[in-house]
């Protein structure tokens, strides 16, 4: 069966520090991968999605970047965090090019920028 791992679960970082959140998927190949951000009590904002290695689509211009160095690995990064980057970050995967395939989510990372 397929599983998705996302870490760390919680992170507290000072303003101006770098960020690296990692997500890996097991049990499937060539998945679509997604990064979402959820502000407190709000909906999910799509940040990036990837349909293959090295292929990244950015939805919102911001202080963050994403990379996909391997088929089942998706990384969210920042060189210098801002206070506004605080939030709950969710990684997800879905079947490639199968529009009826739902997203399967990781457990999320709660990021607090101080």
């Amino acid at each position, binding site marked *: 069966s397929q599983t998705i791992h996302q870490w760390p679960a919680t992170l507290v970082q000072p303003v101006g520090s770098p960020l690296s959140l990692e997500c890996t998927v097991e049990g499937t190949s060539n998945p679509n991968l997604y990064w979402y951000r959820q502000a407190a009590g709000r909906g999910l904002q*799509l940040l990036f999605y990837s349909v293959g290695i090295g292929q990244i689509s950015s939805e919102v211009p911001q202080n963050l970047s994403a990379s996909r160095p391997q088929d089942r690995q998706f990384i969210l990064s920042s060189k210098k965090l801002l206070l506004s980057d605080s939030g709950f970050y969710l990684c997800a995967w879905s079947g490639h090019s199968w529009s009826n395939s739902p997203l399967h989510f990781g457990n999320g990372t709660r990021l607090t920028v101080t």
Partner: protein
Amino acid sequence: AQTVTQSQPEMSVQEAETVTLSCTYDTSESDYYLFWYKQPPSRQMILVIRQEAYKQQNATENRFSVNFQKAAKSFSLKISDSQLGDAAMYFCAYRANNDMRFGAGTRLTVKP
């Protein structure tokens, strides 16, 4: 751009009663898929139900069912025999190709 709107920020229901959560969407696509997700306090996103736009029959999963009105671009979720464990945030989602969009969510409270 596709948008998903949930007009009810909060809803409440008495245990064992029925509640309906509303969702509308805007799209120019003819082939797409719709989903409802549940997010309990643990913040884990849990798929509740899905609907293919080309199917006229409304999807049903145990106590959960949808009312899909394609012409009106409406996709509501009905929860029957509500249970305390149904208390959560509920998100409506739309997918066409690789794009997946979510509504702002509805917080459902279940009263004992």
